[in-house]
């Protein structure tokens, strides 16, 4: 399969599974309404649905808000009874946090619902963290007006994962992204399968995380990365042989240098069986690998995987310490095909707040350090660098590629597509109230597999379109041309709009 001929899956509408989707605005219709139905006919975004007494603004998350007033279909103005009010949704300001503000959440939900970027005034490109990605912009040349329709069609978004030159197979993915490890136990089987199926449909991969290889995944073996982590939960020679990529997880960005911890409540009989543990008792995944104290030890492990599965590529997932560049070189010398750098602001099912905030550095610093170091060592083109830990949007993805990554690995964005609200309570009691990160039977049933799969496909389809758009504006024909192009980026603290030719996006 060459990526150029890859047939991308279709987009299908997948609206919120809750009665009231959350949007920036709240549309209400007062008693003055005579149910003339004009608003239902006017609104091109389908905010209204006809009702018996009066129309229902049941999809007001699709409303443009007051900025619609310039349009001739502005319902508030056109309503003969002036019965329509558009006001900010009071709940919206409570949503989200600095990294995932309400607008980024709602923008991502929109992509997952429709497969297209939001038409509402939602910032779906950056968060509000005040640094890193949120202060970095692309310098796009001014539009010269000759962008002929269809010109972007031949822009390639595929990347090659095996750049080592060894005899193992080449593995090309048609989008520069794959989905990161979330174990069965930390998320529900429906969540896990939705991600795996979406990855298969997109021609890419999804990692199992450290929690075993549920048999439901076996139909998708070719799109699975199985993880070998410090607890060795659910790791068997048999599962290592099934897959095309095996991932060694040394550390996780959200809790670098710390072990994993699955609370007893989440260890159901099924989870326990998968992990060869006892139901109800908490599981610790220690830190670090107790059998790895040197690069030589590390190489021994990589060799061991390669011996068990002669065709697999080996990926090494590490965190971002001060000497992250040396760690990456070590992985290269050990024979890894892929090094995945997991930045400190990445996701987790549960971690101490002190670790998430303070230990190890954000991916925006670590990735360029590694890229430059490997370039200087003359080995950059022999290994694939995957960035993860805090990649929230198509723009973050494109930016980190321009900062030196070949591609990205994602997790939280998938969960947001499944309507994660970032309440930060994945770890408590029965788990996620929204049925995503839970093993509780009743909560798991809150989500349907087809819906979950489609939401993720829709979101990444929208991401790919945005990436193609950025590449097109930069005059590039392939995402591989973007790698390490610091010159197309600007950091707002160091460069002002006046100093650049082009627009900052």
């Amino acid at each position, binding site marked *: 399969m060459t990526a150029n001929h890859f047939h991308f899956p279709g987009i299908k509408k997948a609206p919120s599974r*809750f*009665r*009231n989707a*959350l949007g920036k605005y*709240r549309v209400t219709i007062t008693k003055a309404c005579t149910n003339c139905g004009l608003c239902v006919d006017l609104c091109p975004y389908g905010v209204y649905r006809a009702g018996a007494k009066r129309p229902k603004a049941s999809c007001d998350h699709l409303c443009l808000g007051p900025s619609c007033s310039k349009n001739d279909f502005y319902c508030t103005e056109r309503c003969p009874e002036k019965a329509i009010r558009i006001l900010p*949704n*009071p*709940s919206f*300001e*409570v949503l989200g946090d*600095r*990294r*995932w503000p309400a607008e980024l959440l709602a923008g991502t939900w929109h992509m997952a619902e429709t497969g297209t970027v939001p038409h509402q005034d939602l910032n779906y490109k950056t968060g509000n*963290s*005040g*640094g890193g990605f*949120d202060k*970095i912009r692309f310098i796009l040349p001014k539009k010269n007006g000759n962008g002929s329709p269809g010109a972007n069609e031949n822009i390639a978004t595929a990347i090659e994962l095996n750049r080592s030159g060894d005899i193992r197979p080449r593995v090309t993915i048609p989008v520069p992204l794959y989905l990161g490890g979330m174990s069965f136990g930390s998320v529900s089987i429906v969540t896990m399968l939705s991600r795996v199926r979406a990855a298969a449909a997109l021609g890419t991969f999804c990692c199992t995380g450290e929690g075993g290889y549920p048999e439901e995944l076996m139909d998708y073996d070719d799109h699975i990365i199985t993880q070998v982590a410090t607890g060795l939960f659910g790791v068997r020679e048999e599962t290592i042989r099934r897959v095309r990529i095996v991932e060694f997880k040394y550390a996780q*960005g959200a809790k*670098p*240098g710390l*072990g994993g911890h699955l609370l007893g409540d989440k260890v159901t009989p099924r989870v326990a069986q998968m992990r060869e543990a006892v139901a109800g008792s908490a599981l*610790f995944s220690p830190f*670090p690998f107790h059998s790895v*104290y040197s690069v030589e*030890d590390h190489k021994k492990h990589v060799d061991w995987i390669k011996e068990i599965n002669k065709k697999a590529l080996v990926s090494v997932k590490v965190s971002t*310490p*001060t000497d992250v560049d040396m760690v990456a070189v070590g992985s290269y010398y050990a024979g890894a095909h892929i090094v995945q750098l997991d930045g400190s*602001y990445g*996701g987790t*099912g*549960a*971690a*101490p*707040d*002190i*670790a998430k905030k*303070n*230990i*190890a*550095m*954000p991916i*925006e*610093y670590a990735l*360029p350090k590694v890229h430059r170091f490997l370039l200087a060592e003359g080995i950059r083109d022999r290994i694939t660098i995957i960035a993860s*830990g805090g990649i929230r949007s198509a723009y973050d993805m494109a930016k980190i590629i321009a900062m030196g990554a070949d591609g990205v690995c994602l997790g*939280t964005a998938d969960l947001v597509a499944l309507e994660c609200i*970032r309440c*930060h*309570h*994945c770890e*408590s*009691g029965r788990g996620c*109230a*929204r049925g995503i*990160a839970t093993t509780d039977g009743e909560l798991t049933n809150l989500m349907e597999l087809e819906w979950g799969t489609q939401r993720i496909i829709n979101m990444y389809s929208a991401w790919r379109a945005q990436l193609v758009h950025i590449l097109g504006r930069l005059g590039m024909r392939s995402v591989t041309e973007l790698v390490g192009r*610091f010159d197309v*980026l600007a*950091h707002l*603290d160091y460069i002002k709009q006046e100093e650049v030719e082009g627009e900052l996006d």
Partner: protein
Amino acid sequence: MPPKYHIETSQAPNRFPKITRSGIIAWEEGCLKCARCVKKDCIYQVYEKRDLDDRQMLDSLDSACMDCFRCVQNCPNRLIHKGLNPAYRALGDHYWTPEIISELWFQAESGRIPVSGAGYGGPFSGPGFDAMWTDMSEIVRPTRDGIHGREYISTTVDIGRKAMALEFGPGGEIVSRTPPVVEIPLPVIFDMLPWAPPGDNIPLSFLYGARALGTFAIVRQSAINPIIREFLPYAIIYVDGDPGSLHAQMLRSLKIIEVPDGEDPIALQKRFKSMHPELVVMIRLRLSPGARERSLYLIEQGAEVLHLVADEYGLEGGSDPLFIKERMKDVHLHLVDRGVRDQVTLIGGGGIAMAEHMAKLIICGADALSIDIPLLVSMECRVCRRCKEGISCPVGLDDVDPLWGSLRIRNLMAAWHSQLLEILGAMGIREARRLRGEMGRAMFFEDLEKEIFATMGKRG
């Protein structure tokens, strides 16, 4: 190896309902009484357990809600909303933020370290302590499991002057005099408060807490009364009155005394040590641009311990003040440069608000820290500073029960201790003593920004 340091914790319930970030706004009018929110949607049974606190008229809905938004999104008439709580925003100030205050409350109540799901949700970086990250090591250091405790990580530090070499007599006996050193199992002492409601209950809570933890609380000489006098072994007296009135018998019940930096603190040090040679004397020094030279001078004169204090926002004195972390680096590196750093103990204080600040200030050169406001916050202080104006405390801290107060302090320190272990464990460091000055094991915002971001937008 010393016995493993362990802090006993037990649940110490809040006296007042929590002030939470957001609340539920439910419009009763138009409610269909379908009870969907109660029966189906709330997995935390927030609606079933609904209660009204009659002292403050606070609805338990607000403090129990876990922000899952299911009721908001499923109410058939869309009557349930969430809104930000203005009382939460009003807590503290720009430095002592509502987030810091509420996390301190949580730790003081439970003794547990704050753990949450999903990735970090805060700003990319910030001023002061938020402009640095600590290191971790992937593989190459000895096994450690942080708080899960496979290998013991010591947080003990020494307070006192250290002999750089021992001299031996002809018979192999030690002839050099080793100065007295006080070991504390946690690199923290309790400082005097910049403001507090009056009375003995707060200082007593501190002293009970210090006793339980094996550390010390600084008490003003002028505040000593018969009740406080009972606890002198856990106190460090700050000499704010006539040194002459501190008689030898009283000094002998102390291990450490603190004198203000003034005209001749060394003379005062000598005076106390002549009365009680085993006494460790700390000199309290306001941080300022001159702190490095002053510190060096005092050490050369024989100072044992320097207590370098910033204000409650971590700022030194002067018109363009540096933050404590910057000045601590400056002082530490200056003393290293002059080859005297190891002789003396540096304690930093002022603006220490979170567990991570402990680790970070130690990395920047402190041996230990002094903390103040967090101890008050552990007893539900809201950092409103009304007591400064003489207005009564909204949470009645003047008549807080010292037993409860000390339990809250113990819980908070247990949580901080565990978090320090996490940081040390991730770095592969097994002793808090060895963390001191390890700036190479930290990453600083200024350096990284310059290295990475300042090059953007330029070719080549």
